[in-house]
């Protein structure tokens, strides 16, 4: 049969609202802990004071106008862009490393989209109630109650979005001052634009679009899929165990407790009744009975679907929409516990292990070339970053030979080369730098009155230096060393190898 053009799927799919049921368990606790910690850091860090001599007393401040990043005791200048490159590289490798081991752990537990969505769902459930109440509210016609609850939810979302935007802006300006200026209309235009854009973006992403961001927009989720290997641990439904030979079935003889179709009370009453009945027997006996009938362990309660923030059924297998948040594991374990069935019908496991005839206990398979390679790169890069920051100089220097002309012959035959020395003070206080030479007589160097030069923090000093050598010495000297020493800190002295040009070396 031919399918015509009119049968094509539309390019736009209307969002199907997802109402997640809240759940308790280890993964939920872990997610909550990460959320609280991440929020505490993000929202409180700009308010942490840190006394400085020459800069606002804010622990973390990205001073764009001053062209410096103040991070606790560290001042990062644009010249240190290599650190940013290293940091991005480390972040990428860490993502590859973790994804190879345990799948999309970043998506499920640490991604800000997941965190903010989680928080917004929490707000939603606090105002509108648990899943059935939210579904009912969604279906009912607009009235005062619906208007109040939905309106209140959106109002709180926008408030949270606004505070998110303002907090972000507070990293780029002295936070207490920014707050005052912002509300008195005196802040920079960039602050208003940033806060507005971020408020709208956060509200749209965490409140309205949610899983659509992960499914349609985010590239990371998609390209993490290619890092999966058969040994990679991921959230899996154990189909062998769950389906048996005749498929899943509700605990009662009638098939399919579809909790969704019942009111919450009735569903819970059913579950409680079952629990009493099963508890009279032991869980094992109930299971044995089911296995005799060819039924799997899955009682088809649908709770794993109801708790899923991206609205998928994990029992259909690993899917690109799955952000691997582990909530379905919590949901399933809750149910398994209540029936005294063994846990882990949905669990972290590898495809390889699940496909084997006799699955063993899931374990972290790190002894793989790719994982070890990522691990080594991660350790090396991190060590280099720490080393680079740890041994950073308190100043930057650049010595450029003046090439127009490369050398000049003086009236008595001496050869003179000239150089421009730029010293940037990266320390927090004024510093005197001493300029000297090694490999040629000290008297050959002329820097005017700047043999000792004082430079303000974050500023650069420009020194014109000339080196004058007798013709005999000049022919022997191809290079010499220029020494820049912060006064009083001989350990931080840095030498630059400098070229000396003479007429004889002319090509």
């Amino acid at each position: 049969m031919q399918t015509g053009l009119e049968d094509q799927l539309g390019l736009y799919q209307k969002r199907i609202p997802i109402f997640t049921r809240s759940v308790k368990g280890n993964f939920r606790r872990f997610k909550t802990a990460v959320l609280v910690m991440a929020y505490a850091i993000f929202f409180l860090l700009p308010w942490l004071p840190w006394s400085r001599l020459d800069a606002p007393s804010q622990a973390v401040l990205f001073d764009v106008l001053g062209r410096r990043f103040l991070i606790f005791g560290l001042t990062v200048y644009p010249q240190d862009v290599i650190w940013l490159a290293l940091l991005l590289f480390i972040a990428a490798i860490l993502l590859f490393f973790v994804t190879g081991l345990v799948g999309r752990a970043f998506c499920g537990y640490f991604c800000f989209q997941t965190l903010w969505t989680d928080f917004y769902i929490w707000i939603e459930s606090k105002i509108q109630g648990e899943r059935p109440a939210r579904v009912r509210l969604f279906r009912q016609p607009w009235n005062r109650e619906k208007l109040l609850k939905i309106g209140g939810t959106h109002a709180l979302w926008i408030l949270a979005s606004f505070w998110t935007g303002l907090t972000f802006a507070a990293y780029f300006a002295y936070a207490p001052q920014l707050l005052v200026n912002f509300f008195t209309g005196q802040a920079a235009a960039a602050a208003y634009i940033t806060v507005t854009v971020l408020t709208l973006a956060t509200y749209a992403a965490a409140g309205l679009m949610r899983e659509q961001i992960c499914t349609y927009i985010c590239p990371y989720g998609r390209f993490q899929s290619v890092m999966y290997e058969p040994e990679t641990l991921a959230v899996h439904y154990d189909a062998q165990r769950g389906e048996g030979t005749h498929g899943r079935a509700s605990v009662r003889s009638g098939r399919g407790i579809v909790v969704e179709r019942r009111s919450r009370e009735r569903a819970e009453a059913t579950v409680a009744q079952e629990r009493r009945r099963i508890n009279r027997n032991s869980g094992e006996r109930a299971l044995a009975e089911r296995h005799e009938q060819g039924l799997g362990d899955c009682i088809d309660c649908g709770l794993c679907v109801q708790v899923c923030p991206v609205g998928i059924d994990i029992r259909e297998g690993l899917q690109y929409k799955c952000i691997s948040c582990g909530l379905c594991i919590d949901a399933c374990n809750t149910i398994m516990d209540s029936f005294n069935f063994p846990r882990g019908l949905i669990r972290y496991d590898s495809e390889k292990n699940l496909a084997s005839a006799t699955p063993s206990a899931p374990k972290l398979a790190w002894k793989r070339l790719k994982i070890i390679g990522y691990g080594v790169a991660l350790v090396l890069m991190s060590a280099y970053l720490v080393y680079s920051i740890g041994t950073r100089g308190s100043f930057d220097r650049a010595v450029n030979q003046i090439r127009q002309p490369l050398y000049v012959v003086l009236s008595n035959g001496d050869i003179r080369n000239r150089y421009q020395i730029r010293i940037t003070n990266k320390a927090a206080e004024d510093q005197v730098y001493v300029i000297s030479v090694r490999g040629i007589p000290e008297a050959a160097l002329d820097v005017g009155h700047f043999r000792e030069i004082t430079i303000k923090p974050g500023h650069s000093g420009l020194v014109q230096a000339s080196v004058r050598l007798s013709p005999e010495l000049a022919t022997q000297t191809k290079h010499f060393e220029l020494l820049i020493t912060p006064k009083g800190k001989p350990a931080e002295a840095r030498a630059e190898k400098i070229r000396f040009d003479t007429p004889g070396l002319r090509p």
Partner: protein
Amino acid sequence: MSEQKLQSQTVQTTGHAWDGDLQEYNNPLPVWWVYTFYATFIFAIVYWVIYPSWPFGKGWIGGLSDISYVNSAGETKTHSWNTRALYLEDMNQAAAAQKPYFDKVQSMSYEQISRDPEITAFILSSGKALFADNCAACHQSGGQGVVGFFPNLTDDDWLYGGSYEKIHQTLVGGRRGYMPSFSEVLSAEQIGDLANYVAGLSGIPHDAAKAKAGDVLFHSETAACYYCHGADAKGRKEMGAPNLTDGIWLWAGVAAAPSSEGKVAAIRNVISTGLAKGVMPAWGGRLSPEQIKVLTVYVHDLGGGL
């Protein structure tokens, strides 16, 4: 199905028919295109109002916004928006930002400037631009000059003196170097003797017998070289007469000549023809006093001395 679809997509005709069966296809422009076209009309009308557009009377319709700036004379100028006024605004703002530095340069002594790292850094960068605009055409971008034409400013040989004050004087008033031609006063042989003597002063291989005769001639009233170059031949800065005893040659192409005969010939050539091309223009009226002071310090930094 697909055939049907294709047929329904064939091009419509306008319905007109000429000569029985001559028809005209109707291919209307896409709707989005037409509306974009209409939108450009609206855009144009809005643009006319906001920006200067139509000639009107002796001027033009000025648009909605104005540009005002303070010029170097301290007057506030206001124009209706145009790109020339925008340029002037930018330039005046930049000049105003530089002014405190220029004022500071003007208020400081040379000695103070040479000890101030901030002002020195300002002079190194602003002086570079001024030098490139006004001086580099002759003295070259690095101040290295051209042998036979323009003096090298990076060496330590200064025709008129290399102190701050002398360089300033040179910049403000200009210089005119002159050496008379000796071809009519002296014989070719005498000029050859002089050239050998002068070559010997700076250690160039020469004919000693001729040089001895040249020595006498140099200090005689016939040639009277010592009037300007001094009895010791080390030159006189007050008249711009160069030192003949050092290794630096501006006018004679000594360095370029491969043989010692060639070097002597180059010197002989200068004595014989004389010089009237050592002209440095006066910058006093062309550059502001602050600019000249910045250039003075910049040139002194190139290779200044005494």
